[in-house]
């Protein structure tokens, strides 16, 4: 089996699942795609890429937390790992979480109805934000493939700062961003994604991730960049003192 993440949650890079799908078809290999981050943002159909299995989750589309789904192409046989009852056509035992599923369905419908327009809107906002940041804050680099990434994610390395400290200071100002992904929060290790890109530990620990959503506006971006500028300056000045 080959399992690939469609769009990386930390830096947004989109993998070439079309080509990988062709290889899997040619070699008769089961193809699984983690589309949690891309579903509802990028329009695609699993059949077109020979995808056998695809994972998605509601909370990435403003649906309820705690519900996901596995797309299974017809003909793909799965072994049941949670046994006891015959729900989900005998694929997974346990009473289904109907309210969450209903929420997931509605969220999907809403996301798809604006998928192109919203993607474009977020891309423009994200690009505007990056331009503003690069213009106003020295020693900042953007990570990842700038032309082939999700339209709403921005991974930035801010030299001579500690991402942890920036996060706390922005939080105090009512702004929430992250350093790395939720999956690795609370652990000590710098982002394995950034390290794989060739960052050293110090650079990885100076990197933040900003993701934009349908509720973010240009005013939000202006305010965010203004606060980020202040926080970064304070952080850099104090680094010399202590």
């Amino acid at each position, binding site marked *: 089996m080959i399992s690939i993440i469609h769009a990386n949650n930390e830096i947004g890079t989109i993998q070439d699942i079309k080509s990988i799908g062709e290889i899997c078809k040619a070699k008769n290999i089961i193809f699984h795609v983690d589309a949690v981050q891309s579903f509802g943002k990028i329009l695609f159909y699993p059949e077109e890429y020979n995808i056998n299995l695809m994972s998605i989750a509601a909370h990435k589309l403003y649906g309820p937390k705690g519900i996901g789904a596995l797309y299974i192409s017809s003909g793909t046989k799965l072994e049941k790992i949670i046994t006891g009852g015959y729900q989900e056509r005998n694929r997974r035992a346990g009473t289904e979480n109907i309210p969450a599923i209903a929420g997931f369905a509605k969220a999907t419908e809403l996301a798809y109805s604006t998928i192109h327009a919203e993607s474009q809107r977020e891309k423009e906002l994200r690009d505007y934000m990056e331009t503003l940041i690069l213009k106003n804050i020295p020693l900042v680099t953007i990570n990842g493939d700038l032309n082939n990434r999700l339209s709403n994610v921005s991974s930035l390395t801010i030299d001579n700062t500690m991402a*942890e*400290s920036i996060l*706390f*200071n922005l*939080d*105090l100002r009512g702004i929430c961003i992250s350093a790395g992904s939720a999956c690795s929060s609370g*652990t000590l290790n710098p982002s394995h994604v950034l390290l794989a890109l060739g960052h050293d530990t110090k650079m990885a620990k100076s990197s933040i991730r900003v993701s934009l959503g349908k509720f973010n506006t240009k005013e939000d971006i202006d305010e965010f960049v203004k606060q980020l500028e202040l926080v970064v300056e304070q952080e850099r000045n104090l680094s010399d003192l*202590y």
Partner: protein
Amino acid sequence: MVEDLKKFEHLLQFKEENKAITVAVGMSGGVDSSTVGYLLKKQGYNVIGITMKHWSGMDEYATDSNSKSCCSLDDIHDARRVCDDLEIPHYVVNLTEPFKDIVVDYFIDEYAKGRTPNPCMVCNRHIKLGKLMEAALKLGADYVATGHYARIKNGLLSTGDDPRKDQVYFLSQMKKEYVKYLMFPIGELEKPQVRELAKALGVRVHAKRESQEICFVEDGKYKEFLDTMTNGKISKAGNIVLENGTIVGKHEGITSYTIGQRKGLGVSYHEPLYVLKIDSEKNEVIVGSDDKLFRNSVIGSDINLFTVNTVNDLNGLQCFAKARSRDRLHKGSVKVLNDKEIEFISEDMFRAVTPGQGLVLYTEDGVVIASSFIK
């Protein structure tokens, strides 16, 4: 509850001008620091809770609440919940790497050299009232408050009223320049009073048991910890000898011993024997009679100054000293041996002076003059 709080009224006075001052409280999830959070909030300060993640044992995600080490994930969660109760922000600062490099490695090295380390003194200087304090100041805090039983007297670090309960001994290696940022809101209260106040205020952890041992060694099992961390390299069996070299027994590793120790020698002799010295090179524990444990001179190095500017300023100073945290204050004077070492000569005797422990100098009122490590 209101009645119970009456005697603590002076600690609960709201002041309008405090609203402009931000105080970061070092939250351990324990009753002392949690109570400090409550007091400062009542006094009107802009309070932020800050906790350090410094160690979670060999297992990254240890949540064993039965283990008597400090600051596990459970303790961090307690701190978070207290901050949530107080409706103040809470941040966890990840200091595991510097803690391992600066405190844990030092701990291991000292034992390997036959010394008895004092990790709290090192941690307070570099980690707690070092990096953690710096993180707090970066958050915009004007002051950093802790739950220590200590006071600031005229801008100087000082013991609480009861000199026998001395937490300042462990703080005494902190940098002088950082004292101006410190606040000790419960520094005048003794433990039972703190618990009483905490209960009356509704602090959720008011009855929580405190960890007494070194925070990163579970259940005080130093030998096991050292063996695990060094693959048994520093705990090798050797001889227990008298001062004249006569072998009187065997030991399972010098790390199980400290100066003045009587228990665990497993030696039968016509008089009680105590550990006088540990020789890491010969891997020997040297024992002798109780009277051999007394001396009136102690040499200290790695000197940290508070009330004077240079080491030479200490020469001839009449003051008081402790060679252990629970020591009484010994009256005597200081002789400067060189710019890195001092000798304290006491009018009475010190018992079981232990290389690696702190030699701390105080004024009669408990103000810390200087701190050093016993050679």
